[in-house]
């Protein structure tokens, strides 16, 4: 089991001239501590227009800053939106390669397609076709990286032969992942030999069934890239405190706050009926659990809040169902003071991480 941290970079109102800078600087400081504690990776989402919930619209820049300030921790796109109205695939390949070079070969390349009307409508993308364009991108981007020159005639983009430069530092290319926010997308990942990057917050019971099916399917995959990345990552929250009640109380408020903000998103299916988004995704799980922005209920099972013993117990359950990695959200809307976030990270690193086998 290995551990990562991931960032939505939520910025609460009221917004001041310093609000966004504070969130970004706090995140960078947390990443430096995570690196010191031996975390495996830091992940950043790509979102646009999602007021307060996520101001992480240029993750490649944030991740570059992370890479420049750390030594070991890997930097992960969690994810890049593979929809032509958002990003041309050549630009995705180029930016990712630069990040891989600057980080010294530490890039994890997560892909996805956006799930909100706010974003899809904002770029005037067609919700019916995002899965198709994502599929085309994840099959062509590795070719851009591996071939000296690349040309292509496709459905969602075409280009004459050109040298797409630079090439990634990792050979043949960085590990590839797919964001999984709706049930079934794990199987898209498995069929393409890609890692499944869980970005919603599910129970380990639900996850267990998906893990088994993913492991079975990936045995017979046709890799989109040059190799199979057979890793499964789950998303979680982290607040570790010596005192159980403090840990659960503060962590619970963070979860409620995050879920309340997430519940404000206009999910694609909600505003635009389409087979392209067969379920509300993150929304459904969020609405089941969220009731108000600040009232903590019982922590859902498998959530890493509380004292070190509680967290070890919950994470062992994830390990038992076969999840390879857990990526933690550390804060939401800056609800938890920065010093407490850093203390939580350090306590986790010293008291919890040694109980898990794989060197992070």
């Amino acid at each position: 089991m290995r551990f990562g941290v991931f960032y939505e970079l939520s910025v609460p109102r009221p917004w001041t001239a310093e609000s966004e800078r504070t969130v970004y600087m706090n995140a960078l400081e947390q990443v430096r501590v995570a690196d010191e504690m031996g975390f495996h990776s830091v992940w950043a989402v790509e979102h646009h227009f999602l007021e307060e919930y996520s101001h992480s619209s240029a993750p490649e820049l944030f991740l570059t800053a992370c890479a420049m300030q750390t030594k070991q921790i890997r930097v992960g796109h969690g994810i890049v939106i593979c929809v032509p109205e958002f990003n041309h695939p050549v630009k995705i390949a180029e930016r990712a390669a630069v990040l891989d070079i600057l980080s010294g070969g530490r890039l994890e390349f997560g892909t996805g397609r956006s799930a909100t009307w706010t974003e899809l409508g904002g770029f005037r993308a067609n919700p019916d076709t995002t899965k198709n364009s994502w599929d085309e991108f994840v099959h062509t981007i590795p070719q851009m990286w591996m071939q000296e020159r690349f040309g292509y005639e496709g459905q969602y983009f075409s280009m004459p032969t050109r040298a797409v430069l630079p090439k990634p530092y990792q050979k043949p290319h960085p590990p590839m992942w797919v964001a999984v926010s709706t049930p079934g997308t794990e199987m898209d990942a498995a069929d393409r030999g890609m890692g499944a990057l869980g970005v919603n917050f599910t129970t380990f019971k639900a996850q267990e069934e998906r893990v088994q099916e993913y492991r079975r399917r990936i045995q017979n995959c046709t890799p989109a890239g040059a190799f199979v990345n057979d890793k499964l990552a789950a998303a979680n929250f982290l607040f570790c405190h010596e005192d159980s009640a403090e840990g659960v109380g503060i962590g619970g408020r963070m979860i409620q706050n995050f879920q309340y903000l997430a519940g404000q998103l206009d999910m694609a299916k909600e505003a635009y009926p389409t087979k392209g988004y067969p379920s509300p995704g993150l929304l459904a799980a969020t609405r089941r659990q969220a009731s108000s922005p600040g009232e903590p209920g019982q922590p859902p099972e498998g959530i890493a809040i509380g004292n070190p013993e509680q967290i070890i117990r919950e994470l062992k359950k994830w390990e038992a169902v076969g999840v390879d990695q857990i990526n933690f959200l550390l804060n939401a809307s800056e609800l938890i003071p920065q010093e407490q976030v850093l203390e939580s990270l350090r306590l986790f690193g010293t008291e919890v991480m040694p109980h898990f086998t794989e060197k992070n």
Partner: protein
Amino acid sequence: MPRFGTLDVAAALADAPQVGELTEAPHWELPEATLMQINWEVADEPSLALTPPACHPSIPPYLSLFAGRYPDSPVGAFTLVQLRLVVRAGIRPRGYCLGAVCDSAEATGALRTHWGYPVVHGEASLSVRHDRVQARAAIGGRDVVIATLTQPETIGGADLMPFDNLHLVRLPDGTGAIVQIDPEYAIHSADRGTPTLVLPDPQALGMRGGISLDLAMVGFTFKADTDLAPVRFALDPSLPAFQGTRRLEPKAAAPA
């Protein structure tokens, strides 16, 4: 914390429907209804001023024109055309009804009294053609809305997520409330198409403050068995929904 609406509730209540005892409302079965919804993004600031303080604006704000032709109800056939602003009560999307027109005087009275629809009696129609579905409403002979869905293509009923309604009402005790109307839908068929929306007199449908139509989103039509049940939830218009929502319990029968 997400923004809250800035509607002047006291002023809005002056025009709000006066409802009767909500939990004693009838339960209307509405079989074989034909329904159409058109979603359209609108400008931010004016829509915030139409959103009650109990609710958050959606991001981005959008209107939801909802029309229904109900061939069979306890008061006979009627057509209802509503203009709704999509808001969030806590985290749940809801259609806050700004105004509506119904072609049946009897249905209009019942919809206002039992469920708090801000509806007026006028001309309302929902016509289904092979290549288009059109909702039209007029008051006193003047068109107030013409909404059309063209190029319909079949989609699955499970792809739809119809919103529940919210209505600002005056309760029998004189206080104000927002009530939630939450019909069930058994969807038989659905089509999605290209929307057009024309609002010759938006103020007649409660759209004050010069809301401008921004980006066409989608239109869809569906056939369903639906209903109108007694109101189960009421919100304090001035408190966040997560603080001010209460469940309405039917009055216990008097002891024999």
